[in-house]
């Protein structure tokens, strides 16, 4: 291992030097000569006809350079969904156009219908208030069931609020129905997977710049995947050729999914930059973030678990309504389908699984992938209904799970929901967690809580999820409109240090630290001599971005492949220098050595030779030492885990306190344990937040009631326990070179059910006849459930 940390070292995060000292460069920090400001005018009604927009007074205001409305973009393309979903009857999903600015109708509170460009932000805000829009408010479509039943359409032209009616796997439907009908025991649970606002610390921001001489554009923007943003703008929205558009995502202060997507504001600042001939900058305020960032989750689900009297699972059947909001965001259609339905067999050998998902348009902000993206919804449904089944059968919930676990000798395992799990050991995870949490001591802890007047509960559950998306050929068959490979270029400089250009974008994950650890390990050189370049489409190979816990599994694999190519070429050069054949030269610890001799050259000497090719076999080997690899994964990866939570409930107030939380995860091989632990901590914070605190709540008129931190409950440090995190039970992924699975979302996927199961356990122990409470389990909701109020 390199002396400053290779694979497996808890190297401290080099990017934290700038993040923790206030010296990062976020989009809002960038100020360009001549820049002007853009301000968006957003609808304050959820549904309305734009009868007229009078911009003349605004245009006459001081400093105003231009005013845009939807009419200015009526002829350009729309921002598309990235995945075509076909309904059970074979019909393709409904895809109403998502415009740059609302035109004809506004469809949610926060829907932008005009934009003002002015010399200063203050002038733009002043002018925005002078825009006179005559918007005839219409009744809002908010509730999904009502949206499906009614004839008030979010998009009149499609004549329905149903985007699609998807069945997975449709061929299993009849068998699943029959199995449930014949089953000795069926547990049914109706639940809501609450809508969340991503709340990245940094709001969205974009700067558009136009170069008239070259007829080219630069977009600096808060993006998790600049290449996809460029592709969408080029191919679908504005038609700017890809070679004329550079997209740069500089430091990005968190995304959690919300910055995967292309938003209209990005197109606007580009179009505006060309029109006014100045760089145009927009920085969202927090209210805009609440109203216009893509939200997460928002499912209403009925799940049934059928089993034998002894607890052997027979079938899972799920019916879900998934809210997609007013417009289809880029991943809105894949999230509730292939990222959700395919996981509905969980960790279990259940033979029958059927999932029906109806995606529903409503007059609310678009809903898309948010940390976990479909898998939290799947895990929550499965692991809640299993606990309920255990209670009904009088079985221990852990024993019921173990009885149905896929066993270690069954891999590769074809799940009844259509995936092939490559590896795992769920019993080992459960063994580990039962020992870590002192399960035997729980009864005494419960007694101690009761002595304080509190009810104590324990929740333990499993999860399995799918990361490292995805094999392009497979997802192409399933409707994906993109490939999901990734790419890396390893550039060895003449003096032996290295720049690695990666397709994945780092916005808090720690790529700048971990990726060099891996290359350093492979080349036997110090990680400090390696740097990562990311986020700039003019510098990096075409990458598909960072989401779905895919960066290491996919882009990291590309980087490994490129580094392997470097070693192959460097070995040829070294063989020439050593006057031997490549087959006779070994490479280890940064040294090329002729087998069985002490004749060697260092990696640095070889690099120098590659760039100063004197006495060089130029007819056989090109100069230079730079290699690119694209990596398209053979399968998803399948992280899994066992989570345990103990809570106390105050029966007088309904307040839930998380007393402990333990996470045992199988992420395969772990490259940097400290960073992995941090990722789990962050995911758990969001999962516990979903379970107890967070909720994007719309009223019947489509007004977002929780549109600020006065009403949207963000988890704070004192809401969360000290976590116990373990990743000692990893089973390496079998199909990627590092054996890694991905750790970014697991905490948010596995934990909501753990918390809710623990609360229900606590209430039951107190004699309360409560079998389910919908998240978030706020004090008021828990109290109401206890008191049937």
């Amino acid at each position, binding site marked *: 291992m390199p002396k400053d940390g290779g694979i497996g070292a808890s190297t401290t995060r080099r990017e934290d030097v700038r993040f923790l000292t206030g010296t990062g460069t976020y989009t809002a920090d960038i100020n360009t000569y001549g820049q002007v400001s853009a301000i968006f005018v957003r609808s304050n009604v959820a549904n309305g006809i734009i009868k007229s927009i009078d911009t003349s007074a605004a245009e006459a205001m001081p400093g105003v350079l231009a005013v845009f409305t939807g009419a200015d973009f009526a002829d350009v393309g729309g921002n598309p969904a990235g995945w075509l979903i076909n309904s059970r009857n074979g019909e393709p999903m409904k895809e109403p156009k998502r415009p740059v600015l609302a035109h004809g109708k506004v469809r949610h509170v926060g829907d932008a219908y005009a934009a003002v460009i002015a010399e200063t932000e*203050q002038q733009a*805000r002043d002018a925005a208030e002078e825009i006179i829009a005559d918007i005839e408010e219409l009744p809002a479509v908010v509730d999904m069931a009502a949206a499906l039943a009614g004839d008030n359409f979010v998009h009149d032209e499609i004549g329905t609020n149903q985007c699609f009616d998807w069945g997975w796997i449709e061929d299993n439907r009849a068998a699943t129905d029959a199995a449930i009908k014949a089953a000795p025991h069926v547990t049914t649970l109706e639940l809501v997977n609450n809508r969340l606002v991503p709340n990245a610390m940094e709001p969205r921001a974009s700067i558009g710049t136009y170069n008239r001489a070259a007829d080219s554009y630069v977009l600096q923007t808060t993006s998790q995947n600049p290449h996809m943003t460029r592709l969408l703008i080029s191919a679908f929205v504005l038609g700017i050729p890809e070679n004329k558009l550079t997209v740069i995502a500089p430091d990005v202060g968190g995304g959690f999914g919300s910055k995967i997507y292309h938003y209209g504001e990005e197109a606007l600042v580009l179009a505006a930059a060309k029109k006014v001939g100045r760089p145009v900058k927009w920085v969202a305020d927090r*209210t805009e973030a609440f109203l216009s960032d893509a939200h997460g989750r928002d499912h209403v689900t009925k799940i049934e678990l059928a089993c034998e009297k002894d607890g052997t699972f027979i079938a899972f059947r799920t019916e879900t309504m998934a809210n997609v909001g007013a417009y289809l965001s880029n991943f809105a259609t894949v999230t509730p389908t292939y990222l959700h339905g395919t996981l509905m067999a969980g960790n279990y050998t259940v033979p029958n699984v059927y999932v029906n998902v109806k995606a529903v348009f409503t007059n609310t902000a678009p809903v898309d992938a948010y940390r976990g993206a479909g898998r939290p919804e799947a895990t929550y449904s499965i692991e809640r209904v299993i606990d309920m089944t255990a209670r009904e059968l009088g079985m221990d919930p852990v024993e019921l799970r173990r009885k149905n676990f896929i066993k270690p000798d069954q891999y590769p395992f074809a799940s009844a929901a259509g995936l092939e799990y490559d590896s795992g050991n769920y019993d080992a995870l459960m063994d580990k967690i039962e020992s870590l949490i002192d399960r035997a001591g729980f009864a005494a802890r419960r007694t101690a809580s009761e002595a304080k007047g509190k009810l104590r509960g324990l929740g333990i559950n499993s999860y399995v999820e799918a990361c490292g998306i995805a094999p392009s050929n497979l997802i192409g068959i399933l409707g994906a409109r993109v490939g999901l490979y990734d790419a890396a270029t390893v550039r060895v400089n003449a003096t032996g240090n290295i720049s690695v250009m990666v397709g994945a974008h780092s916005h808090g994950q720690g790529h700048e630290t971990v990726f060099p650890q891996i290359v350093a390990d492979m080349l036997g050189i110090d990680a400090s001599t390696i740097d990562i370049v990311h986020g700039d489409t003019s510098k990096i190979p075409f990458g598909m971005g960072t989401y779905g816990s895919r960066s290491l599994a996919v882009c990291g694999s590309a980087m490994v492949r490129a580094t392997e190519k470097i070693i192959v070429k460097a070995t040829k050069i070294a063989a020439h220098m050593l006057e031997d054949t490549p087959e006779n030269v070994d490479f280890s610890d940064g040294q090329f050595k002729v087998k069985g001799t002490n004749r060697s050259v260092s990696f640095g000497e070889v690099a120098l030779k590659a760039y100063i090719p004197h006495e060089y076999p130029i007819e056989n080997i090109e100069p230079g030492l730079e290699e690119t690899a694209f990596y398209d994964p053979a399968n998803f990866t399948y992280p899994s885990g066992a989570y345990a939570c103990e809570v106390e409930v105050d029966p*007088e*107030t*309904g*307040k839930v306190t998380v007393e402990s939380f333990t996470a045992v995860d199988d992420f395969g091989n772990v490259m940097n344990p400290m960073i992995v632990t941090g990722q789990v901590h962050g995911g758990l914070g969001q999962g516990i937040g979903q379970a107890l*605190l967070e*909720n994007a*709540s719309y009223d019947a008129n489509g007004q977002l*009631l*929780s549109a600020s*931190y*006065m*009403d*949207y*409950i*963000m988890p704070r440090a004192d*809401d969360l326990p000290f976590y116990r995190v373990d990743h000692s039970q990893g089973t390496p992924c079998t199909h990627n070179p590092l054996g890694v699975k991905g750790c970014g979302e697991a905490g948010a996927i596995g934990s909501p059910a753990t918390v809710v199961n623990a609360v229900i356990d606590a209430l039951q122990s107190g004699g309360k006849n409560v079998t389910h409470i919908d998240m978030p389990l*706020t*004090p*008021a909701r828990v*109290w*109401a459930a206890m008191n049937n*109020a």
Partner: protein
Amino acid sequence: MYAFEIERPSTIADAVKALTQEDAQALGGGQTLIPTLKARLAMPATLVSLTGIGEMQGICLADDGAVCIGGATTHATVAKEAAAHYPGLAALAAHIGDPAVRNRGTIGGSLANNDPSACYPAAALGSGATIITNARQIAADDYFEGMFATALNEGEVITEVRFPVPQKAHYEKFVQPASRFALVGVFVAKYADGVRVAVTGASENGVFRWTEAEEALSANFDKSALEGLSVAADGMIADLHGSSAYRAHLVKVITGRAVAAAA
């Protein structure tokens, strides 16, 4: 934010004069007003900052033992300097908002704003405090007039608040989990002549005295004295964070906890 002028008078007299200007608005610590301005929800022509007025700063004891707090005194100062004289009040101040709020926010600003979920109104009403302005003295019982409404006249400035010190007191706050304001906060104070119970956060009319509890606790200052009492849900706030029935229930629970903790 819209553009505005700002004045920083150093005397109460100058502040009062400045506030006679058209669309002038007093600025205390700005913990409510500044966010309101940032959201363009208010458009004062002139802000008159009160925090530079020396005679409105600090804490002292009156001859009758009452704790006198200057209207521009921050929560952090009260938390620190009132602790020896009126620990129940100091503890309340120590748990308002977060450190940034406590180092900027002022007692006068809080009472003038009379947010229905703020903490200080409960202390003032629960202590039978006297609100002293540039023009007059107002008993707390006459001062609070409902949500965001007070007896203050246009341009009137709270220069001092005078708190009689009880034998025992405690403020118990059950927080609204997002804002961390009081979902229900109860200030209980036991004086020689009886007990006062003031409730914030719960009522659509802002802070109020729970007189039935006061009577019961005056007879027997023990949590058990509340048994059999209840608060009507009628008139209680109902919102995302709790129904009116929940708040009414909490008033009793939190009052009991305040009594149990009173010292």
